[in-house]
């Protein structure tokens, strides 16, 4: 650390630039990773945050949830080990007029079911025209206790609460009681018969399913259902490959960068070797310097990422997955160390006679 730290102190401007480069590379990688992950999550998080394990749709729906129609009878036919491990769900698309017209997903849920969202602000649904809205609608001007109209339905609804991470297929969710959902969905779809019916779109389950009528319904794990959402698979694959390459190339660039940085000190290390300083000491001082630079650089990158995400929050689907960030940081550190150690390896091979003459 002695050599590494004193060198940084002596050549401040050079090392500031180096840290800036590392910070920018890590910023780019962290931020794009968070964006891709956030976008992928915005397809599924409205359902996924209730940690379900499977979903049942009607057999002829071809995995299109709004084309899937099930009735009370079907719901009762599904047997799970614990009574609370199944929840009926109604899903339809609508619009809300805020400071502009926003596409929303209407979720019809039973209040006691596990699909009931967490409330981050306000209260739970009490009256029949109470709704809970995705907190991302706040950025379009929606406030607590606002009255909203859903598409061309007749009723007005009062926003009594907000919930976070509430999007489905990237659209913000508005949660209604199942009965109200049927009314508004029927209004929107023009299917008046639905109002008095027991129609639902899907049954979301947790744990193990013991039985269901397989001639009318089909069961799949929630993960495989996500991949049938239009565009989800293509998007996840594209982004995984893009981000994968980005991380790979960024790590490689860092390794080369650090290699060149260290190899420049070859003659100095040669003189130190001639004076009897061990390879081990030189290698340790290179290592600690790299760790310092990469840790400070990626910490700045991380700070910039969070700063940007706060600044843009609500406007973009950015989401932090700590495991990804930790993984990227560890990879960057590892690649930089490989670059540094490779150059130290070159240094250990220097003939000290040549170094001093």
């Amino acid at each position, binding site marked *: 650390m*002695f050599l590494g730290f004193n060198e940084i102190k*002596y050549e401040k401007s050079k090392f500031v630039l180096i840290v800036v480069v590392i910070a920018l590379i890590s910023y780019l990688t962290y931020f794009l990773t968070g964006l891709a992950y956030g976008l992928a999550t915005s397809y599924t998080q409205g359902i996924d945050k209730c940690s379900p394990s499977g979903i049942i749709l009607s057999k002829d729906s071809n995995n299109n949830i709004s084309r899937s129609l099930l009735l009370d009878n079907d719901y009762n036919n599904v047997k799970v080990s614990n009574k609370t491990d199944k929840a009926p769900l109604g899903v339809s698309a609508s619009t809300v007029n805020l400071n502009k017209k926003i596409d929303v997903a209407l979720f019809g849920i039973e209040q006691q079911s596990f699909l009931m969202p967490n409330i981050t602000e306000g209260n739970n649904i009490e009256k029949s025209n109470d709704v809970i809205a995705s907190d991302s609608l706040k950025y379009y001007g929606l406030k607590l206790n606002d009255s909203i109209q859903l598409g061309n339905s007749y009723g007005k609804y009062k926003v009594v609460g907000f919930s976070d991470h509430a999007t489905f297929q990237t659209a913000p969710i508005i949660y209604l009681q199942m009965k109200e959902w049927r009314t508004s969905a029927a209004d929107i779809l023009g299917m008046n018969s639905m109002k008095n019916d027991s129609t639902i779109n899907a049954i979301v389950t947790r744990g193990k399913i013991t039985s269901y009528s397989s001639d009318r319904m089909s069961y799949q794990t929630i993960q495989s259902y996500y991949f049938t959402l239009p565009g989800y698979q293509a998007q996840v694959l594209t982004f995984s490959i893009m981000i994968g390459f980005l991380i790979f190339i960024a790590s490689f660039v860092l390794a080369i960068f650090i290699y060149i940085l260290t190899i420049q000190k070859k003659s100095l290390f040669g003189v130190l070797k001639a004076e009897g*300083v061990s390879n081990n000491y030189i290698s340790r001082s290179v290592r600690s310097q790299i760790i310092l630079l990469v840790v400070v650089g990626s910490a700045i990158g991380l700070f910039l990422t969070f700063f940007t995400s706060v600044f843009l929050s609500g406007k973009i689907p950015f989401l932090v997955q700590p495991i990804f960030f930790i993984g990227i940081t560890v990879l960057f550190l590892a690649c930089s160390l490989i670059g540094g150690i490779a150059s130290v390896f070159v240094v250990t091979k220097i003939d000290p006679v040549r170094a001093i003459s």
Partner: protein
Amino acid sequence: MNDILLEFKNATKTFLQGDEIIHALKPTNFLIKAGEFVIIIGPSGSGKSTFLTIAGGLQPPSSGQIIIDDQNITDMNLKQLSHIRLKYIGFILQSSNLVPFLTIDKQLELYNRVTRTKIDEKFRLSLFQNLGIEKMRKKYPNNLSGGERQRAAIAKALYSRPEIILADEPTASLDTNKALEVVKILAKETHERKKATIMVTHDERLIPYCDKAYEMNDGMLSIYSRKI
């Protein structure tokens, strides 16, 4: 206790350059005792640097033996040699082997860091005072004059309390006055601290300050014969 610190026993160095065998060092017998200041004079390419690097354990002789403080270093491995250099030898090089990004104070501290020992502040200060650079201790090598830099290099070489000082053209970049000054200091430190110092140079004006002078011609080491 033997006060012979460094001994060459019939040491030679040959290497191949293309098909030609180069005798960089012809069979050499040489010894130096504690408190002796030896100068080796010779033109460039005469083999004096080869002599110095073999003396410093930087390369092994092709034949013969090198003894440092009663230890035969001829067949030691790289790690052992590195340890010998750190413990017994202080180098002073032409371009001053100072680390560019360390202050003069820290040039010396580096030795403590490498050997995991405590800074000997008293000794460090006395070296700086003897060499007249105590005002420069917070400065970087780049901000010193050539003479100050070489004096700092001498302080660095002495700080590890080596038995042997090997100086390779330490005055090459200095004017006559500065060069004489540096050599006087080197001679004084050698005598007072009972070191064995070998200085390689091509500057014959420095001879009056040494105890023994040798000359090196085409790999042949012999007692300096010309009158001054």
